[in-house]
């Protein structure tokens, strides 16, 4: 509490002692503690899901079946996807929101601190259930993270019930987190902080939270239908009983497409915070960024069937979903051009957060362009379910979402710990990740176009050389993250040079006006925003 130097008016009831040890973390309702918990949880899940990716890449290192049997391979692809989406990317963004949203809008804490504690602490149990199913008889879920019926109904094992229960808990956690973010942003902004003065990270999270509230319940409905179809004799997706397996895909992707924007909109907010700082210019086109984010969110509800072009839709519907999908590249393009325009004639320096942000802009755009290719209905018939799709969504999720999370961690870590991180390690982490991630994912475009299907543990001989390189890139990328782990442990031990409140020369915003490390209770008296 000695660091609370700027809060001259703090009330007496905040002086009560903080529980120590495990109880501090179990009982905490402090947004900074919960943010830290979310971020560490996400990082552990990132390493767990990454280990599964290593199993996949080891098996695919050469053609033939050598390391794992195909059923286990399927479990690896499935659980890798689930862990990365629901365990790594989404909790990492929620952790950043917890840490940053109150500090950015001048609020003392999140609006619903007790619910905040709950929404984090149910999450480890969801993943305990999901991951433990891997060690049970029959193994874990093996139907792909998209759990298409009838793979998840007729052809799955009884462990599916555990999968369904785990997804329910993850969904409940996300919904609670989203409600908290919305209430905080709507009710707890400092005086003078109008909506159009909010930092873009706050804006993108507000919109993301609405997306979460709209689609996570639909996912809950979809898994419930799978559960009742499998165990209670309903036939939502069973043609014999009057259902339709294709309907599963409609319901799933009605959730699934907004979900991919849930995983990228906060990234746009992060990049929009970092680029102006290191270009030492104000963000170009603030208002257009807000409107672009909102349009992406709205459009995300009318494009879902582009995941299903090969299901035999009528031509009219295929054209509609093709054009609607292409329309999304307009607001996304607005964002990319705004970032480039922000850097134009700026006094740029290349600190580690900026390196990650620049890599994000270039590599996310590559992922966006391959997405545009996939949107073209006739060619999608060739690309569908190939490694081209795998390349596409890993460019937007790994070099997109995850690079933005790393950029965010490097950008705000000195604010959190009060010490500059080990810059040498950070640069090693960046350059090793940048090179290896491209060795890992870029050749996937080629093998995909040449016809290598995804989710198969074996492949035709002509893909052997490319897959060897992809696997080497994969192992290198995985090892590179251990540098990040070492850096984070050093940072948590509070090693490094002390930093000022502003940390970065060009940084602007309320979070930079409080001392570093950020005091346990910040903005107990709301700041005045001009």
């Amino acid at each position, binding site marked *: 509490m000695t660091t609370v130097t700027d809060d001259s008016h703090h009330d007496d009831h905040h002086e009560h002692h903080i529980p120590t040890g495990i109880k501090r973390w179990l009982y905490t309702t402090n947004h900074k503690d919960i943010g830290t918990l979310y971020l560490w949880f996400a990082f552990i899940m990132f390493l767990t899901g990454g280990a599964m990716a290593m199993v996949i890449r080891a098996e695919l290192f050469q053609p033939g079946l050598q390391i794992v049997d195909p059923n286990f391979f399927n479990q690896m692809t499935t659980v890798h996807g689930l862990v990365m989406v629901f365990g790594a990317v989404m909790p990492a963004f929620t952790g950043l929101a917890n840490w940053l949203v109150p500090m950015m809008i001048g609020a003392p804490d999140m609006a619903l601190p007790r619910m905040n504690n709950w929404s984090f602490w149910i999450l480890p149990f969801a993943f305990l259930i999901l991951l433990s199913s891997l060690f049970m008889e029959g193994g874990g879920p093996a139907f792909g993270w998209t759990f298409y019926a009838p793979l998840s109904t007729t052809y799955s094992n009884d462990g599916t019930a555990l999968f369904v229960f785990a997804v329910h808990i993850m969904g409940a956690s996300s919904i609670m987190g989203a409600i908290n973010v919305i209430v905080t942003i709507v009710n707890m902004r400092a005086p003078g902080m109008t909506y159009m003065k909010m930092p873009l990270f706050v804006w993108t999270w507000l919109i993301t939270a609405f997306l979460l509230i709209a689609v996570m*319940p639909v996912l809950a409905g979809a898994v419930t239908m799978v559960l009742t179809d499998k165990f209670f004799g309903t036939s939502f997706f069973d043609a014999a009983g009057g259902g339709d397996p294709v309907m599963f895909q409609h319901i799933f992707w009605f959730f699934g497409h907004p979900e991919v924007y849930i995983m990228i909109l906060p990234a746009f907010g992060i990049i929009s915070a970092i680029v102006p700082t290191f270009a030492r210019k104000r963000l170009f086109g603030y208002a257009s960024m807000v409107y672009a984010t909102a349009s992406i969110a709205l459009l995300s509800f009318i494009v879902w069937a582009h995941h299903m072009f090969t299901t035999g839709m009528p031509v009219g519907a295929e054209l509609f979903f093709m054009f609607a999908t292409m329309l999304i590249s307009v607001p996304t393009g607005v964002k990319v051009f705004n970032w480039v325009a922000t850097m134009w004639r700026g006094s740029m320096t290349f600190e580690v957060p900026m390196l990650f942000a620049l890599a994000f802009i270039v590599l996310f755009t590559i992922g966006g362009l391959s997405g545009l290719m996939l949107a073209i209905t006739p060619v999608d018939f060739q690309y569908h379910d190939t490694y081209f799709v795998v390349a596409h969504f890993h460019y937007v999720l790994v070099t997109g979402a995850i690079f933005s999370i790393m950029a965010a961690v490097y950008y705000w870590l000195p604010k959190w710990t009060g010490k500059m991180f080990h810059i040498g390690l950070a640069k090693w982490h960046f350059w090793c990740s940048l090179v290896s991630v491209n060795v890992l994912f870029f050749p996937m475009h080629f093998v995909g176009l040449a016809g290598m299907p995804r989710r198969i543990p074996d492949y035709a001989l002509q893909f052997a050389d490319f897959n060897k390189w992809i696997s080497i890139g994969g192992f290198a990328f995985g090892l590179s993250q251990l540098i990040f782990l070492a850096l984070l442990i050093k940072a948590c031990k509070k090693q490094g040079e002390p930093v000022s409140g502003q940390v970065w020369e060009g940084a602007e915003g309320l979070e930079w006006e409080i001392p570093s490390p950020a005091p346990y209770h910040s903005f107990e008296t709301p700041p005045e925003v001009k």
Partner: protein
Amino acid sequence: MNQQQNQANNKIVIKLLAIVVGMFGFGFALVPLYDVLCDALGINGKTSDIAAVYESVEVDKSRLVTVDFITRTNTGMPWEFKAQTRQVKVHPGEMNQVDFYVKNPANTDIVGQAVPSVSPGPAALYMNKTECFCFEQQTLKAGEEVIMPMQFYVDPQLPKDITYFTVQYTLYNVTSSSEGVAMNRG
């Protein structure tokens, strides 16, 4: 945090929870919505499961439409199932009958459900069946064989560009989920 702030928070939380509950319901509402949309737009190749009434239909002698019949049995369905007539050429509006042969070669009673699918999908709207075995579940005793009739006419409103379509019936084994039905008929 003061009382006023709490109340303001609760107001938004209640609204947001209402959205959550509403969207959970919407997920389930998608199920009937899907069927309604597919029926209305005729985009899923599903024919109506209610018998059509054949009266005062004008026969369009000016054109012939070719209709193919394909049969298949789903995994776990041992029945032999085939159309007695593989292909018919019909005038729109004309009444036709096609018979289907089924045999249950297993040594247990089995309940089957046939599910139709029309390709190209838009033709499904114009495939009017006045009688079909697919309207209800069929029970065959061990070793039993029957001829199942299907009567239909093609709606004269059928777009001119559709000259050929295929009707496929898939037979599903629904014995386990229709125990009660089987007993009643047995």
